[in-house]
C-alpha cells in the first residue's frame, strides 16, 4: 500500500514534469525536432515555404504567446483597440511571423547551436533562454535569446531576439505610424494585405 502510494506520487510528479519541461529544455527539444524535420524534408530544403509554415504551425506555434507579442508590438495603442481588434491583430501578426520564419527555415543549413546555462531561480515566472548559433567559420556567432513566461500550459515564448534585435519591438514604430495615419483598422488591413502577398522566395541555391 505504502509502496503503491509512493509510486503514485512519483508518477504524478514525473507527469507534472513532463507537462512543464524546463524552459531551456523545451527550447532545445523543439529546435532539435525542427532541425531534424527539415533535414528529412526535401521539399522544405528546395524552398517550399508553405510546407515550412505547416511545420512551424505544428511544432513551434503552440509554444508562443502571440497575444502578448502583439501587445508588446502595439505598445500603448493596444489599449485603444477593441477586444475584437486585438484578436485580429494578434492573428495577423502571428501569420506574418510564421511566414517570415518559414522564409528563414527554407534557407536553413545545418549549424551548431550552443545553449548557455539558464540563469533563473526555480520560482521565476519569466526567464531568458540564451543560445548561440555558430556558423561555419569566418562569421561571428549569432545570439538567439528567447524571452519566456510561465503559464498554466507550460512555458511560452513572447519574444525572440536575434543578435540583440527583437522580432517584436522592431515592429513598434511601424505599427505606431500605421495607427497614427490610418487607425487601428488601417493597421489590420495593412497586415492582412501583407499576409496575402505571395510568400517569400528562397534566395538561391548555394
Amino acid at each position, binding site marked *: 500500500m505504502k509502496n503503491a502510494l509512493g509510486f503514485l506520487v512519483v508518477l504524478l510528479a514525473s507527469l507534472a514534469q513532463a507537462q512543464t519541461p524546463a524552459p531551456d529544455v523545451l527550447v532545445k527539444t523543439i529546435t532539435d525536432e525542427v532541425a531534424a524535420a527539415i533535414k528529412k524534408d526535401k521539399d522544405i530544403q528546395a524552398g517550399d515555404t508553405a510546407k515550412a509554415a505547416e511545420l512551424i504551425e505544428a511544432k513551434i506555434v503552440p509554444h508562443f504567446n502571440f497575444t502578448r507579442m502583439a501587445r508588446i508590438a502595439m*505598445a500603448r495603442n493596444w489599449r485603444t483597440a477593441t477586444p475584437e481588434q486585438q484578436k485580429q491583430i494578434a492573428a495577423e501578426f502571428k501569420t506574418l511571423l510564421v511566414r517570415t520564419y518559414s522564409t528563414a527555415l527554407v534557407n536553413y543549413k545545418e549549424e551548431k547551436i550552443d545553449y548557455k546555462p539558464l540563469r533563473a531561480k526555480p520560482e521565476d515566472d519569466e526567464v531568458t533562454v540564451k543560445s548561440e548559433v555558430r556558423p561555419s*567559420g569566418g562569421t561571428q556567432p549569432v545570439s538567439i535569446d528567447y524571452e519566456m513566461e510561465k503559464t498554466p500550459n507550460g512555458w511560452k515564448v513572447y519574444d525572440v531576439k536575434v543578435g540583440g534585435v527583437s522580432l517584436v519591438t522592431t515592429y513598434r*514604430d511601424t505599427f505606431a505610424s500605421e495607427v497614427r495615419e490610418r487607425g487601428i483598422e488601417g493597421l489590420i488591413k495593412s497586415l492582412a494585405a501583407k499576409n496575402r502577398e505571395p510568400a517569400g522566395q528562397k534566395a538561391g541555391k*548555394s
Partner: protein
Amino acid sequence: MAVKRLCAALILAGSLAGCATSGGNPADPLEKVNRAVFAFNDAADKVLITPVAKGYRAVLPGFLRTGIANFFSNLEDVWISVNDVLQGKFQEGSEDFTRVIFNTTFGIGGVFDFASDVGLPKHSEDFGQTLGVWGVTSGPYVVLPFFGPSTFRDSFGFVVDGRADLVYRLVDDDVPLRNVLYGTRAISNRANLLDASSVLEQAALDRYSFVRDAWLQRRRNQIYDGNPPREKDDADDEPTK
C-alpha cells in the same frame, strides 16, 4: 574614394537637417532625406549589387567563398583587437590578436578560420562602438549612400575604420588592386546576406522603419556586447514616446 563619398553624404545630411521634417522616431529626425537615400540604395542593390552577388554565389563553390570571406575577416580582426583594447577589454583584445596570429599562419593567410574551431570565436568591434563605449551618444540616424544605416557617431567611426582598414593600409601604392579588393570584399559580404534579405522582404510592412529599428537595436546590443540594460520601453504596454 569611399571616404570622400562619405564626407559628401555627411555634409549633405547636415545641411538638409534644418529643413527635414520629423517622422515618428525621435532617433530619426532626418527621416525624409534618409528615406530618399534608402530608396536609392535599394534600387542600386536591386539592379546592380544583388545580381552580382547572386552571380558570385552561383559561380564560386562554397569552400572558395568561405575562404574569401575568411581572408577579409582575418584582416579585419587586427583592427577589431585594437578596438577591444581601446575599450579596455584586454582579454578579448588578446583573444582577437591570437585569432590573427593563428589564422594567418595555420589558416594560410586567413583563408581558414581555425581559431573559431579551437574556441576563439570572432568578435564584432569597430570604432563607432568604441566611441559608444567611451560615452559618445549616437546622434541622429543616417542612411549613407551605398553603405546603408549609420548614425552621426558611427559615420565618424566608419571614416576612422576606413583609414585603419588593412586593405587601405597595405595596398597603398596599387590603387587598381586595392579597388579590386574593395569590390571583392563588398560582393563577398553581400553574397553572405542574400538569405537575410529574402527574410527581410517577407518580414517588413515598411522596410525603411523595420531596417532602421532593427539596426539601431543591433548597434545598441553590440556596444553593450550582447547585454544591454533593459530599456524602460521593454515593459509591455509602455508608450514608445
